[in-house]
Structure formats: structure tokens, C-alpha cells
């Protein structure tokens, strides 16, 4: 009876001495694995958790003289200022437009490319196409911006072709109506190959029997894609969507925009990040407390969006992230 009771007790109810001994035993046995974990944990502690102390700046009026800790508290002052700052609001709007547009345009392209690559039967051809479309990912935006600027210049390749067909020259880089499309499409061109890798990996894990059965039942390739492949990778798509929505405000387009924009397109191009950078380093007007508050807001909104999207995805019956 005594033994049975002992057996039924959950591990956590072990007395502390035994628990400690068990942990020590694990550490001793797998110390190499734990040692491998140290750099990762240290990285998170140093670069992700320790700087969080600086978040207090969001609630302070930062003074160079007084430093982070002694600068005066101003409560929610920086946040209030944010919503009366029309340049910030413009940046917020543009960030969301670039982010949402990016998700709506890029994700389908990445999925479509993965599906198409999966359909290629010639192995060599598949590798060649994948390498070709993935290659631009490894080129820096600084370099690409120079190339794209030249291509779209008044005497660049695109405008020469336009003139050849009797059309007038135009450049999306300096036009308010064309700039966002330029950013989205140049982003797709650069990242579609890289972005499709994860979907391609998900597709390769789909059981081949299903295709064989569908084929015997007379399903066309398109029907197989629609009824087998896409449902099979739905959970991957959902996870990618959650991650993408979570990073809407930090959508990583800083390099792309900063290297290609100019003041005529600020109304449609200036994002939160480019605005903060310009005001902090070029004009020197921005207070570090204010820029920290913007950073805090971005993180809070990002967390909210992740949780919300996760909720929507899980309530639709899919596997979530949290």
C-alpha cells in the first residue's frame, strides 16, 4: 500500500533533497548538452533581457546630463506626445501598410513558388530555379538599392524600354503612387526564394501515398495541390502568418526603405524606424525617452497581434504558436 502510494505521487512531490539529487544527476550525465546551452542563454540574457532595464526611459524625459536612471519621470508623457505627433502617426500608418501589404502579397507568392518548385520533376532544374530565386536574399539592400536606382533612373534600362514603346519615362522610386509597389515587389524579388524554403520543407513531409491514391482516383495535379498539399501545409502557413503579423511594426524593411527613399516620397515611405533614425541622428531633435516609448509601443502592439492572431488561428481549429 505504502509502495503504491509512493508510485502514484507525481514527481514534483518528491522531497527537495531527492529532487535536487535528481537534477544534479541529470546535469552530471548530460553536462555537455547543458554546456552547449550556456552561450544561447547568455546571449538572451545579455542582449534581450538585460537591456529591458532601459525601458524605464520610455517614462522619462531623458537628459544626457542625468543619464537613464536620474532623468526625471514624466509618466505617460512620451506616449501622449506620440499620438499628437503627425510624423509618428504617418510613420505608423506607413509601417502598417508596408507590413499588411507585404503579408498579403509576399506570403501567397512564397507559397505559390514552393508549390511550383515541388511540381518540377527534373531535379537539376529544380535546384537551378531554387538557387536562382534564393540568391538575391544574400545581397545587401545597400548594394541592391544602388542597382535598382540605376535600373529605374531616367536613362536606366526600364525607362529605355518604355521609351522604345513610345511611353513616357517614369520612376516608382520617386513617385508617391509607385513607391509602395516598388517596395513590395522588390521585396518579393529579393526574398521570395528564401521565404519559400519553409513551405517547401513542409510540402516534402506530405505522405506520397495520398498523391498516389488521388491520382488513382483521377485527381489532376491542380486538384492534388488544392486538396492534398495546401491542407497539409496549412499549419505551417498559420504559424508563418502569426509570426508575420507579430512583426508587423518591426517588419524589417528599414534597410530597403532607408536606402531607396527620398523626401518626395516621405508621405508614403516614411516608417516608424526611418522616422526615428532621421530625427535622432540627422536633426538631433528626438529625445531618447521618446524613441524608447515608440519602441515599447511597437513591442506591445506586436505581442497583442501575436496573441490575437494565435487566438483566431486556434479557434479555427489550427495549431497555434502559443
Amino acid at each position, binding site marked *: 500500500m505504502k509502495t503504491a502510494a509512493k508510485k502514484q505521487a507525481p514527481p514534483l512531490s518528491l522531497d527537495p533533497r531527492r529532487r535536487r539529487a535528481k537534477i544534479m544527476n541529470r546535469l552530471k550525465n548530460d553536462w*555537455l*548538452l547543458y*554546456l*552547449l546551452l*550556456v*552561450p544561447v542563454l*547568455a*546571449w538572451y540574457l*545579455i542582449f534581450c533581457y538585460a537591456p529591458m532595464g532601459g525601458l524605464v526611459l520610455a517614462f522619462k524625459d531623458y*537628459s*544626457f*546630463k542625468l*543619464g537613464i536612471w536620474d532623468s526625471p519621470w514624466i509618466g505617460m508623457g512620451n506616449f501622449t506626445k506620440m499620438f499628437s505627433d*503627425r510624423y509618428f502617426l504617418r510613420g505608423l500608418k506607413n509601417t502598417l501598410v508596408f507590413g499588411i501589404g507585404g503579408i498579403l502579397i509576399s506570403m501567397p507568392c512564397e507559397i505559390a513558388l514552393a508549390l511550383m518548385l515541388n511540381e518540377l520533376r527534373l531535379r537539376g532544374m529544380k535546384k537551378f530555379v531554387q538557387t536562382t530565386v534564393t540568391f538575391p536574399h544574400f545581397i545587401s539592400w545597400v548594394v541592391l538599392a544602388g542597382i535598382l*536606382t540605376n535600373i529605374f*533612373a*531616367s*536613362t536606366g534600362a526600364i525607362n529605355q524600354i518604355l521609351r522604345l514603346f513610345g511611353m513616357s*519615362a517614369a*520612376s516608382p*522610386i*520617386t513617385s508617391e503612387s509607385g513607391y509602395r509597389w516598388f517596395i513590395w515587389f522588390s521585396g518579393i524579388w529579393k526574398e521570395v526564394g528564401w521565404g519559400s524554403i519553409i513551405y517547401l520543407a513542409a510540402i516534402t513531409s506530405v505522405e506520397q501515398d495520398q498523391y498516389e491514391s488521388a491520382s488513382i482516383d483521377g485527381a489532376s495535379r491542380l486538384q492534388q495541390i488544392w486538396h492534398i498539399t495546401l491542407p497539409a501545409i496549412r499549419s505551417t502557413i498559420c504559424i508563418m502568418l502569426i509570426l508575420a503579423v507579430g512583426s508587423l511594426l518591426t517588419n524589417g524593411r528599414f534597410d530597403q526603405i532607408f536606402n*531607396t527613399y*527620398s*523626401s*518626395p516620397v*516621405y508621405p508614403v515611405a516614411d516608417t516608424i524606424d526611418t522616422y526615428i533614425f532621421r530625427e*535622432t*541622428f*540627422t*536633426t*538631433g*531633435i528626438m529625445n*531618447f525617452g521618446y524613441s524608447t516609448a515608440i519602441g515599447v509601443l511597437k513591442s506591445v502592439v506586436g505581442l497583442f497581434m501575436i496573441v490575437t492572431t494565435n487566438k483566431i488561428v486556434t479557434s479555427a481549429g489550427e495549431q497555434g504558436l502559443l
Partner: protein
Amino acid sequence: MKKLISLLLALVMVLSLAACGGDSKTPDSGSKTPAGNDSSGGTADSGKLEHMDISVGYWDVETALCGDDIQKFIEEKFNVTFEPMNVTWDDYYEKEQTWAATDSLPDVFCADFRASATFGKWAREGVIRSIPEDLSAYPNLSAYLDSPAAEGCKIDGDLYCIFRKTYQEQAETVKDRIILYRWDLAQKAGVTKEPETWDEFRDMIRKIMAADPEGKSIGGMTAPAMNYLVFPFCCYSMPGAVLEGIVFNWVDNGSGTYVPAYFGGKNLGDDALPTFQLLRDMYTEGTIDPDMAMATLAESNAKFLGGRAAALCTTDNQVKQHINDWPGTYGHDMNEDVKYLNLMPSVDGNTYYWAIDYAWSETMFSANVDDAKMERLLMIYDYLVSGEGALKGRFGNEGESYQIVDGKLEFIDNKAAVEVYPSCELFGNLVSWCPELPNGYVQPYVYPDWYEDWKTELTDLGRACEDVMPTFDRAYTQAFMNLNSDFRIKMGEDMLNIMVGDRPVEEMWNEILDNYKTDGLEDVIKAVNESAK
């Protein structure tokens, strides 16, 4: 075996992390110069002085402080050791602001912050220290600072930086922008007279573009950035508005109220309209490069040198670059093909030039510099701006890098001093780009005589405008700076937006004016007028 590999892998990862985190010193802050740490030796002066380390933030200072004889001489004379904190032309703005935010500014550093909000903020928040009011112990420096340019170095009445004079006199600022144009192609296109008005200039460029004598699809005037065009075009209808940022000129709008010159006119901003219209017209017809919004220094230079731009608005330094590159491309000197554009008359019939601050940058001192170090720095500055110091710092040692022949200063073997003594790049320019030389010596040059003639002619053109040049009451500029306001003028941005825009000029300018009003223009005008009066 597997265990051994895992152990090695884990050790490598841990050690690499330790290696990354262990060295907290940045490469800039850590390195000492190889020379000049001998506190016992040196001159009679150094014997009385306690040894000090002085960190210097200057463009490519790591290269300059290589331990040559000039550096050794100055270090021994003042018993100091200079520690370089390197910045480059590409990163100095961001790097120095990052240093300021982390309380690690060099003891002395150069930048061009005093027309931005950064300068006032740093002075008021104790990032930089003020310079003592009594400079009687430093007569050369005191004389150097006895200039109107010193007013722009003050915050709330105290001097917080030392301006670095680029030119000896105001009229020389005309050389800060030089418009070069292809006279050879203009002649081939049938132009016989050099342009004397903007209309004639436009006509000439149009003709060159239409004729395209070299078959390179030549375009209109280009520039490295829109800011380059601001000076010459401002002078078309608002010559006082050449300065932007926070240090700008104020003018009487006719009713006794002072407004920033950029917003001058019967109604706020009326004066600016003809300039904006001229820019729009030139951009629309192609006499200004259609790719101006994305222009870069390299691209604009390549266009002009490659015969793809009929004109180039650039700076003295860049002209020198073209003088060097031209023979390699065309087989002869640049002046055989190219001319500079005269000053163009404005809408009111007068001719103006861009009377900008003739010290574009300044030296600042970290607030961590104590009184003793400040005293030493002022001694060094006083020396470098003196006749002897200017010769030593700028030209090196007599007989080694320069010589006096018939009362004229000459480089030996036509080699610039920095080629013999790299530290002349620092000591020759630290205090001023053009210190006054003793005995009436003139800075020797290594460029062709014709270019020196061009520069003299340009200065004469500037001097000829002096009678009509607008004058300004600096009290209003100072009053605005003392407001510590976030308001600022973004002229280059506004000009570019209107120039490339597709809506009517006046409509766009009114919209921009409304934005300035939202940013507090009218409140600023009211506050400045009340304060200055």
C-alpha cells in the same frame, strides 16, 4: 569520440562568447599613438607641464596620428599624448552622437552640429563644456575668435565651440558652390555667348541636350544632392534664406515683424515662390537632372565626367577631383572644355551670392574635460592658430616639406605636406581650415594656375555683390536659438518636393507652409520678436 567532439564544440562556443564580451574597449578608444609619451624630454614649456592624455575625434585621425615628427613636436611641446578616436566622413554624425549618448565623447572633437538642435541640447544638458570667457592668456585664439562667426557658437550667451574657419572672408563662400558646364558642347550646339541669366543658362542646356554632340544622351545639370542646389537657387529670389536647420537669418517682413528669411515677403513665404517656380520649370524641361531625388556624389561625378550631364553644381573639393580625372578621360585639361557659371541675377535685378557661415564646422570639448585639461587644450589651440603653429601644423618642417623662396611659401617637390607628415592633416586643420599665415605668406597650391584664377575670379564676383547683399540682425538668430525650440527649416527637402512634384507650385508651397505653422512657426516668430526686442 562523439563525446570529445561535443566537448570541443561546447568549449569553442563558450570561449567565443567570452572572447566577444571580454574586450570592452572599442578599437577607437583603446589605441595609443606610438610616439610622444616622453614627459621628461621636450621643450622648456613641457618641463613645467604635467603630462596628459588627450583623446581626439577627427576624420581619419588614426591615419593622421602616425607618430611623425610634427606630432612628436607638438606632443613634447605641450607634454601630451594624443589618443585617436577615429571617425570617417560617412559615420562621424552618428558616431559622435552615439558617443554623446554613452558619455564617451573624446576630449576634443570636430563636427558640424551647431546649425542643428543637437548643439543646443548638448550645451544645455552638459554633454559639452563651455569655453572660458577670459581668453586673454591665449591671444592668438582670442584674436581668431573675435569674429561674427563666434555668435553662432554661443548658447545662452556662453561659448560652447570654436568655429573652424573655412574661408578668410565672407565673399569667399561663393566658392562653396561652383556650377561647371560643358562649354565645348555648348559651342558645338551653336551657342556663342556664355550665359548671364538663368534663362540663357536654361537655353544653353536645352540646346546641348537637343544637339547631343557626343551621342551620349546628355542630360541637364546634376548635383550630388539637392542641398547643393539650395545656395545658387536661393539667390534667385531669397538671398537671405540660404541657411536652414536652426541657425537661419531673420528679416523684417515690412511691418516691423522679423520672420525667418525663408518665409520673407508680403505674405509669409511669398519671396520663395519664384525660386520654387524656376526649379520646377528647369526640372520639367530636363535642364535639371530628372534623377535629382536619388542623386549621389559618385553618380553625379560620373555623369559629368562621362559626358552624360551638361552641367554640375558641386564644391571646390570636387572640382579638384575633376581637374585630376579630366585629362585621363579627355586627354587635356578640364578648362579647355568646361567653364564655371557666373553668379546669376535675381528676380529683383540684383546679383547675390550665398553668404553662408564661412566656418561650416566646429570643435567641441567634452564635458568630462576638467579645467586643467581645458587649459592645455586652449594652449594647443592658441599655438596652432599662431603664425608659427599654423606653419608647423599645416606645412610641417621648413626644408623638409616646405621652403620659402623669394618670400613665397612652396611645397618641396610639389608634394603636399600631408604626404611627408600625415599629422598635418590633423594639426593643420583642427582649429581652422585656413589659419592666417605669417609674413603675408599665401597657401601654396598643387592645382593648375587656371584653377587658382577661377577661384580668384569667383571671390571677386562675390565681393562685387557686397553692396547689395542683405544684412541681418544676429540678435534674432540668437533669440531663436535661446528658445530651445524643436522648430527647424528643411529647405532642401521642401525644394526637392516642390521641384519634382506634379501639383501647382503655389499649392504645394502653401501646404508646406501650413505644415510649418502646425510645427509652431507663428509661435516661434512671436516669441523671437518679443525676446529680441
